């Protein structure tokens, strides 16, 4: 039985590794279509990553081990997180390793080391990206924690599987606190995955770039790992949102049929979510850096209001 549940865990990891580029490709395709541009299809990210893996690594002369270690660490931590978020089944042996708080802090590891790598070469771009990223994170991370806390209060647990079970199989109650949390989560989702209105994943314009500025010096397999991890991060944030706010359909047992059904449902949900993401992205303009304070501040405020309303109303 244990072997079987480990097999399911492996299946989830495999799915994460394989489906994440497709999801990123789907979002890109829909975005292109929405903006009337021609598109390369949803499989383009695979081709990009495959090509990057074969390319030579070009490293600045004074790059230290931090710079070379970061891609592997980012990749490792992302896969680790992917093993914890329950999206094909809630009965995962790895799921108890970290609860939602630890999950948020695992994302913080990625950010911490990416920011350090950005400063390692000593160009102004890298420092700029790191500085901006840490500023944004210092507001987005608490907002994320508060949004998640609100849900965990409703589920009376910070363990993700437990939260999913309570939400999916418990009595359906409309809670005002969850509405606040959901809004905040969407805002944080856009921030953390580096999308408009906070950052633009497809720009290399010095005035606007944040995440791209930090990884500007990467090339070859290092860049491939970071890009792949970035796509997995988008995938994980989306599935995490689904698991927390719309978990219906995630199977509670490791029954193979249920998992296939759940997987199909997940694909539908993700496709819809991708369209929503694109709608938000095309509907908005990128914000000026110091306008972000208001945006992230309101995300933080909304999440805190959610928790307050839980404590006061429920």
């Amino acid at each position, binding site marked *: 039985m244990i072997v079987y549940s480990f097999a399911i865990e492996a299946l989830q990891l495999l799915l994460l590794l394989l489906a994440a580029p497709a999801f990123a490709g789907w979002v890109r395709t829909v975005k292109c279509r929405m903006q009337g541009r021609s598109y390369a299809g949803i499989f383009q990210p695979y081709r990009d990553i495959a090509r990057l*893996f074969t390319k030579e690594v070009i*490293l600045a002369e004074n790059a230290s081990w931090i710079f070379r270690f970061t891609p592997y660490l980012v990749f490792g931590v992302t896969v680790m997180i992917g093993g914890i978020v329950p999206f094909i089944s809630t009965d995962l042996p790895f799921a108890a390793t*970290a609860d939602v708080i*630890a999950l948020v802090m695992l994302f913080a590891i990625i950010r*911490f080391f990416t920011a350090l790598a950005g400063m390692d070469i000593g160009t102004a771009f890298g420092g700029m990206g790191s500085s901006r990223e840490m500023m944004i994170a210092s507001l987005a991370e608490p907002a994320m924690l*508060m949004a998640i806390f609100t849900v965990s209060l409703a589920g009376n647990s910070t363990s993700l599987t437990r939260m999913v079970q309570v939400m999916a199989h418990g009595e359906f109650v409309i809670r005002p606190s969850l509405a606040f949390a959901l809004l905040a989560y969407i805002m944080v989702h856009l921030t953390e995955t580096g999308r408009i209105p906070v950052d633009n994943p497809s720009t290399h314009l010095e005035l606007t770039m944040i995440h791209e500025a930090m990884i500007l010096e990467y090339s070859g397999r290092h860049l491939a790992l970071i890009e792949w991890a970035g796509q997995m991060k988008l995938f994980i944030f989306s599935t995490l949102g689904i698991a927390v706010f719309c978990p219906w359909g995630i199977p509670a047992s490791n029954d193979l049929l249920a998992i296939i059904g759940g997987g199909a449902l997940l694909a539908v949900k993700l496709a819809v979510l991708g369209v929503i993401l694109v709608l938000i992205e095309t509907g908005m303009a990128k914000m000026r850096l110091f306008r972000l304070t208001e945006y992230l501040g309101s995300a933080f405020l909304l999440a805190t209001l959610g928790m307050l309303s839980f404590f006061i109303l429920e």
Partner: protein
Amino acid sequence: MTPFDIAIASLFLMFAPVILAPCCARSRNLTIHLSFSLTAAASLAAVIAGILCVHLESTTSAVVQMGLPDLPFHLRLDPLAGFFLCVIGLLAFFVSIYSIGYVKAMPANRPITRFVVFFCLFIAGMLLVVLADDAFFFLVAWGLMAASSYFLVLYEDEKTENRRAAYLYLVIAHVGAIAILLSFGVMAAQANGFETFQGYTFDAMRATSYPLGWATAAFLLSFFGFAAKAGVIPLHVWLPEAHPVAPSNVSALMSGVMLKTSIYGIVRITFDFLKEFPWWWGGIVLVLGLVSAVLGVLYALMQHDLKRLLAYHSVENIGIILIGLGLAMIFTSFHLPLLASLALIAALYHTLNHAMFKGLLFMGAGAVLHATHERNMEEMGGLIHRMPWTSALFLIGCVSIAALPPFNGFVSEWLTFQAFLFSPALHRPILSLLIPLGAALLALTGALAAACFVKAFGVTFLGHWRGHHHIQQVREAGWSMRIGMLLAALTCFLLGIFPTVVITWMDVLSRQMVGGKIATSAGAFGWMWLTPYSHERASYSGFNVFIGILAVVLVAWLLLHARKAGIRRVPIWDCGFEKLTPRMQYTATSFAMPIRRIFGFLFAIREESHAVEPLRHAAYPQRLQYRLRVRDRFWGWIYEPLREIAFFLARKIGNLQQGRIQVYLLYSFVTIIVLLVFLG
């Protein structure tokens, strides 16, 4: 040998260098090796005593016929004291090893003996504070600790800055000590009245039940006193002045463990002596903790002096510990022993963790200081190439303090968050507001701390060297310094991946203080899992996180290196500019600029930039001068008015001094008349 005997032996060992060091003062090398090996041995003994005492749950007390007649010194080693003995001893052990190299590398014209003597007295003072079992002895030990640390802060006394910092430290330490003295006075009076002296023992205070009014007075006084020592905002101003100017091994001890003696004091007085208290005491502690945590980290972000930055982080971390303590007090007053024990364990575990990583960071800062002769981060950069050991160990400290798993800072922060989240409805409107807000502010603190340590590590160790002299002069720290830091880093790591072992060991503390015990583990492989309540509500396994990340990283690395793939080293891409200089990198000030802009209203900021002559054209200045001053607002709000008042009073009282003998004779005459009238 009982734990108590070991503790006493440790004290004797600790006092030995005080006598030996002056005897062998002629040989600098001998003094250093002998003294610091003795303090290391003594500290290790203290750790063993502490571990055994908590493990065996033993309580031993003794009376020493010393001090004033009829007022003997009382000593007592119970699990709470044992835990703090362990914290102090552990860091003192690492710092002692580190000090061998550090003190050797100090300029040869500095007198070593003085340093060694006060160093030993300082650690001994801290050990005595937790062992003392009466108010009199406690204050003697407290004074020993304060005075010896004052002399250590003053060690490099040729700089005005250092003398000022030491003086400020002494003033605030004494104001605090007076408040603690008054608090003991209140409790002793309740315990046994003023007729006999027997009320001054802690046993008497423990056995008394206090009326609410007097209990509140005692609590507020003692909390004020301990807060002054711990650097709780707004009593923190001495801390960022005194910690940076002390030698780094002393800063490590002051920040890492001296502040913790006040945490010991607060726990001892509230949970052990007063026992029953209303919830708003906890509310006060919680609010002050939150204020210290958030403001401490924000002030830290604005610093570009490496040691000052670390000192402000101590304010932040003391804040986090107080958040845990405040929650424990609130839950105790609502009779929720399980939650209270969770919050208390979170606070105490953070106490231990902070001692380890802050000690490590200050030791790292000391190594950097010795290598570069510079505290200003704007003059550093690229040290990772010259100091691989120090940078790697400093990085571990940064990751721990930024609360990233799988290191230790995360575990205690996680426990504190759990205490917030488990909090049920407490039916007090203020608490329903305070608890969510508290969780929000703690989350904000954690994120800002990460930003701050990206800045600290990135600007100091990464990028290019910004300093004036050549980077070739920068050398890696010596072996003993590396070993000291390595041990502290290893402890950070072990406390992060095996928290359950330590928390099970600490169980007795929560049982004795708040009468509850958290469930630490469940099922097989219990040591792996941290489950404070039940497996279903929350679980964390630092060990699995570590192994998981390690496994994926290794697999990815091996897969990518199976085929010999080339790495080409090239010059930095400079966008065709060709004139990149190290001065064009992001600096500490520019790194923190976005955050300074967001939270600017909390600081007194003065920023000016103007063009420097010669000007060829008004629109194209050749050189710009930029000045930025960020100051703590509390100086202007609290301390400057206080200083003004003190000077005003002094001037008024000074009018009494006329300098003529007749006037003084008149004063004595009037005094005698007044005394005769009132006492006659």
